């Protein structure tokens, strides 16, 4: 037992934390949601997250630069000199991925399809988050019979096949098929209706958990208004799990959009390119051995969903200490910090500092906004 510790005895837990938080002076961008997780991840988890990010970014870039990348328009069926494209032509120099039975260029339509998919995700996610979060917040906080009715409705819709519901909504909104924006909006809204219950359930569960926590009760004791409690405390604290659900739902949104298109409830081919519709048209081709009309748009769907799902699953794993991988140090090193029991266990009063360390990592929004602001001033 070394002598030095005899002199360092003091009130535990009072000064060491200062050093801890001061020494953690990281660059602002390393605290941004996805970047921060990239720093935590190790091994396979890191690999999966990186692959997912690369795929997602690739499709985003394709969506943005579709007009530059695609040699032809999505509805183009003729060369500039007025002669028509060949139909069902195999891949060639002019049409690197071939042409369809209707005479569209497969490569161009696949590229333009990325744009449709990305816009539809954004519309679907933005709309369903707003309504889902609002309903979840109100329902979870007030409870009572309104809550019970909303829960039963959400559960009923949640248990229902989402594609069927999306079909019904698509029929109502657009009567079947429509223009690019009309079609995308219709698809987006159809998907929205399907996903509202998911956000509702998640946010409601979080709100119910948080409203029993001491800081919300403390606000009630001092007489804070319901509006203040909901906006200042519940809203910000209950939306931390959203990034994970958001990514996982985005991938489902693409699959639903493609399903709608495949059944013929998507967007008309002359208004926008949509992978599901193209696959629908290629069913007959496949039986005739014409593979290029099906394989390329299909692969596009698989890869974009794969990318987004990899990101979502990685974020989910990293947010859950039970699923998170950690490296072993290999040798006994490190400074002595408060720890009792096991660092993977749920933080409790017995292992405060580790809880603090975890909380420090969980602190995105608050810590970042200030640091990002500072960096902005310097620039």
């Amino acid at each position, binding site marked *: 037992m070394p002598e030095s510790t005899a002199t360092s005895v003091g009130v535990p837990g009072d000064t060491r934390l200062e050093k801890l938080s001061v020494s953690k002076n990281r660059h602002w961008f390393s605290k941004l949601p996805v970047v921060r997780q990239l720093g935590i991840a190790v091994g396979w988890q890191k690999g999966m997250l990186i692959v997912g990010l690369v795929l997602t970014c690739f499709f985003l870039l394709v969506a943005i630069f579709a007009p530059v990348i695609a040699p032809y328009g999505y509805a183009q069926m003729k060369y500039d000199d007025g002669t028509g494209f060949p139909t069902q032509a195999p891949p060639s120099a002019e049409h690197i991925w071939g042409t369809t039975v209707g005479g569209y260029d497969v490569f161009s339509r696949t590229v333009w399809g990325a744009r449709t998919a990305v816009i539809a995700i954004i519309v679907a996610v933005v709309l369903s988050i707003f309504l889902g979060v609002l309903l979840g917040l109100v329902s979870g906080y007030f409870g009572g019979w309104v809550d019970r009715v909303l829960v039963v409705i959400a559960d009923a819709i949640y248990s229902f096949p989402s594609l069927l519901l999306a079909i019904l909504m698509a029929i109502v909104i657009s009567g079947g098929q429509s223009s690019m924006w009309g079609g995308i909006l219709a698809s987006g809204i159809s998907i929205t209706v399907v996903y509202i219950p998911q956000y509702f359930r998640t946010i409601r569960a979080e709100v119910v958990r948080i409203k029993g926590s001491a800081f919300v009760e403390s606000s009630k004791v001092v007489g804070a208004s319901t509006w203040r409690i909901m906006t200042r405390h519940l809203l910000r604290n209950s939306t931390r799990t959203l990034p994970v659900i958001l990514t996982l739902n985005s991938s489902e949104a693409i699959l639903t959009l493609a399903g709608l298109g495949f059944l013929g409830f998507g967007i008309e081919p002359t208004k926008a390119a949509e992978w599901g519709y193209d696959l629908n048209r290629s069913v007959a081709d496949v039986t005739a051995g014409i593979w290029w009309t099906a394989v390329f748009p299909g692969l596009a769907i698989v890869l974009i969903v794969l990318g987004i799902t990899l990101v979502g699953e990685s974020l989910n794993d990293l947010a859950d200490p039970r699923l998170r991988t950690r490296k072993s140090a290999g040798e006994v090193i490190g400074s002595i910090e408060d720890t009792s029991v096991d660092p993977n266990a749920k933080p409790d009063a017995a*292992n405060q500092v580790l809880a603090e360390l975890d909380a420090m990592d969980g602190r995105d929004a608050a810590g970042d906004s200030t640091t990002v602001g500072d960096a902005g001033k310097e620039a």
Partner: protein
Amino acid sequence: MAGTHSAKDNDLAEKAVKDDALTPPTGDDLAVVDDLSVSFVTDAGPIKAVDGVHFTIPRRSVVGVVGESGSGKSVTARSIIKLLPETATTSGAVWLRSRDGKGAVDVLRLSGDDLRRVRGGEAAMVFQEPNSVLNPVYTIGWQIEEGLLAHGMKDRKERRAKAIEILEKVGIPDAATRVDYYPHQFSGGQKQRIVIAMALVLNPGLILADEPTTALDVTVQAEILDLLRLARDEFGASVLIITHNMGVIADIADQVVVMYRGHVVEQGDVEQIFYHPQHDYTRRLLAAVPRIGQKLVVRDREGRPVERKVDWRTQPVAVEAKGLTITYPGRLMQPDFTAVDGIDFTIHRSEVLGLVGESGSGKSTTGRAIAGLQKVSGGSLKVLGVEMNGVKERAFKPKRAEIGFVFQDPGSSFDPLMTIAENVAEPLIVHGKYSSVADAKDYVGDLLEMVQLPRAYMNRFPHELSGGQRQRASLARGLALKPSLLIADEPTSALDVSVQAKVLELFKQLQAEIGFACLFITHDLAVVDMLADRIMVMHQGRIVEHGDADQIMQHPAEPYTRKLLASLPVPDPREQREHRAQLHELLAAEQA
């Protein structure tokens, strides 16, 4: 091991030298923890939890490891059966002798089936939370038998007989039937008995008990400690008990190991540690432990005791309850649950009323009702002149400025996304005293200084403060509006004793200076005795006893209060021996 080796094999030579350092120690101790270090990898980098720990566990004895959170005591105990997460790295050795005295093994170098045989067979563990260590979907008999099966008992009938036998031994009534029950069909204390039975049935030489009573009420704690004594006396096992409670140590330990920040500060027999502590830290730890009959006296800078300016008995009544009843509505087709069942009490201004009870006694519900967090179902509750039975929030809101509340859990009492200043200033802004947080900055700084926190802490986030600091900040928030009534719901039960002592001192001083009426809710009789003017004991929703603090502590009238007092272990081994005898008499009388 230190045999001769050829010079050409340098690696081997080095290894042998290293092995020399790890030869089993001589002597007849059951276990020797030799220069053990453990570190973990966290997101914040590697953390060393245990650093060069050395101590021994004699045969047939109870060794108590005491220390505050972060002392590394749990990690040390888990290292003895190498039950550490994958992210842990260890060095040093843990020598464990088998029960029959055949040779010693270094557990840290075991793996596979060798390690499996040691776990349970030589050293078995009892955990803190019986709820989470019993598998909810298997019967307790099956779970006991799993251990036996893992240690080679193939015969099913024999296993079952053994399971029933051990359940009887640990005091589960009607064991032959209840062996087929599921964990949720037992009470918390019974579950912990079952967990101990699972350890004892394998007949290990060493029982590792990691805070085995922390999650339990004091009356149940006394029973579990008796059971662990039984493990030593009847089963001939040694017990390593990890605890932060000096009373538990005084009650059960033969030997004591004091740990602090990953080091062993002191090891000695229990009398030496309590009566002749060698180390400064041990002395401080002992001084911080609350004891019954020890009134807390706070002194100002000149050393004069801080006293209240007025006699609370002459003050008007702040809270008055008459036949107060609170029920929780039952779920579909289930009866309502009555948490508080027709209680009467008053709190005067400037008075500290201590409310004591075990879990489920209704003490927290009472406090929440006073703060308007819980609807009153029957009777009358007047808070600062407002009748709470059927009160409208609009009518009560102005009174809220006069009420402060300090919550138990320092982890969740602040909004994690708001700074300390924003959190502390919330009551000020809600009641329009200041228009913004920036506006209230100076006053919030004053408040933080009042609770002995640096002003600069206001820009920190809650997780950047330790538990004790957060509880002080919580007190600052509770007092921000200069309330005339403060409700403190177990404000120190999540804190280490040394931190608890400081928070209680601060609390006492502020109460004397400001003179608010206070309802102090706690399960700890020693804590309430330090602070309270009057004490109210609750049990199953009713008030068992109610009177002056000294009266109740010195001459309890009701059997329940007496049992509660007798169950509380005294942090003094000699006194505790008599104290325990008293408890056993009391229980015997109860049986008769």
